[in-house]
């Protein structure tokens, strides 16, 4: 990504060369659309600091992801009258993945009339950076009564960055049950992966530099819906 943003054409041509360090493939579509309406950026990597998604953008992106989830549920598993939605479990990763999962479920219900099971899985006790960052307070882990065995679990998080949270979440899931399949939905994919992990559903793909921070604010937690890109200040840890 150091040589500047790729175009949609390049994305198609190089699909087979996809690297885990790049933003996920679904994000490419979104990002290229966004870029086409903007003037060409300078050659510095990353996005200009500022508001990346407004409240209306967040709502639109969540709607699109909900539609994609409906589609995936219908095509993935055995055919069923409810379009496979009974099979689907959205598991949010606290803090902001949890309300995001509930929102996606609410939108799926609005579009299809079918409710979807939602859970949260706190991954703090599974993190590999506790020694580096110190302990933190735990958040709830709640699974639907039907459990996750044999079902399609979609992990939901706000930002996909290093991939370490997702790795921890995968470890947690392994202790919680045995899903038929696990997929990943994130609101923002900012690249810079440190593990071979890639999202299946991406709200917005954002090229960033490592020094930048991507902050997702959700009304349930922060009182407002928005996604910001900021330059990291001081020693504050990146998301």
């Amino acid at each position: 990504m150091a040589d500047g943003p790729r175009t949609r054409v390049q994305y198609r041509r190089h699909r087979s060369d996809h690297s885990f360090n790049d933003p996920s493939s679904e994000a490419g579509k979104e990002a290229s659309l966004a870029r086409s309406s903007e003037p060409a950026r300078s050659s510095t990597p990353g996005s200009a600091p500022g508001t990346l998604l407004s409240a209306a953008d967040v709502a639109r992106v969540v709607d699109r992801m909900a539609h994609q989830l409906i589609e995936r549920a219908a095509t993935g598993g055995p055919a069923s009258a409810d379009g496979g939605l009974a099979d689907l479990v959205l598991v949010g990763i606290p803090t902001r993945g949890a309300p995001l999962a509930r929102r996606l479920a609410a939108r799926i219900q609005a579009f299809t009339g079918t409710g979807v099971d939602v859970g949260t899985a706190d991954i703090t006790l599974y993190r590999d950076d506790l020694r580096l960052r110190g302990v933190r307070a735990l958040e709830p882990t709640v699974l639907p009564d039907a459990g996750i065995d044999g079902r399609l679990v979609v992990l939901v998080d706000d930002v996909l960055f290093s991939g370490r949270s997702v790795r921890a979440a995968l470890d947690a899931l392994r202790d919680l049950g045995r899903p038929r399949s696990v997929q990943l939905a994130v609101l923002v994919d900012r690249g810079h992966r440190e593990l071979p992990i890639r999202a299946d559903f991406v709200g917005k793909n954002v090229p960033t530099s490592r020094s930048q921070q991507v902050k997702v604010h959700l009304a349930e937690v922060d009182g407002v819906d928005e996604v910001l890109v900021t330059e990291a200040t001081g020693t504050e840890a990146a998301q």
Partner: protein
Amino acid sequence: MKRHLLEAADLDRDDATLVLDTAAQIDQALAGREVKKLPTLRGRTVVNLFYEDSTRTRISFELAAKRLSADVINFSAKGSSVSKGESLKDTALTLEAMGADAVVVRHWASGAPHRLANWVRGSVVNAGDGTHEHPTQALLDAYTIRQRLGRLDGVRVTIVGDVLHSRVARSNVGLLHTLGAEVTLVAPPTLLPVGVGSWPAEVGYDLDAVLPKSDVVMMLRVQAERMNASYFPSAREYSRRYGLDARRMAALPDDAIVMHPGPMNRGMEIAAEVADSVRSTIVEQVANGVSTRMAVLYLLLGGSPQ
């Protein structure tokens, strides 16, 4: 949080609440799971250093550490070099050389964990020292009260019995006061320690007068092994004046609970029918002990080594 947990006073209100909240989250996360194990303390070593007999506390700490994937070494004074005359310090240095990240210590001498904390680099958790403190018991008691009654602030807790020899009472008075509960001690005058007037608790001698105003009654074990003098005329008289039987339990408010740190002297400080009643939390206390101690180990050891 401080690096060691030696006494209830090591925890301020925020720390104590953090421990209880963490224990609740751990409880919830592990409920109904087939794999009741978390990888959090993988590669850490916890030494259980027990100079005094213990069933539930040692097993509880061992299970807590193992559920967090720590390596556990159990060391009891019997059958070790201690019986050959090795001092506490030399034992501590041996453990230090073996790289213990935490030492859970029970000792017959009050203050032994404090001494130990000066000798080892890891965290020291007091699992009961003499007649001094037993902070994790107080934490699990507070957790149990909060779980049953939904709050701690303003809860009226009556602690009954052998306060003089009870490290459980001392730790509970400190911690429950920190968490906003109102504690009353009821005991024969001979079984109250000198200076009890300076504790943040009321003191009474008449159990029947206090029971109707109690949300929680915590019965203490009569510690015959520590009694080298006659503190009361006979077991029968003690039981009549300070034992909790069905008649006294009936005097409690409707939602009040009965606690006992164990092991119980059934028929002495607590009647069997009370110990086995629905108000009794004695079995819950044991279960809660594991999650509370997991929370303590996580908060002390989970973060950076220093």
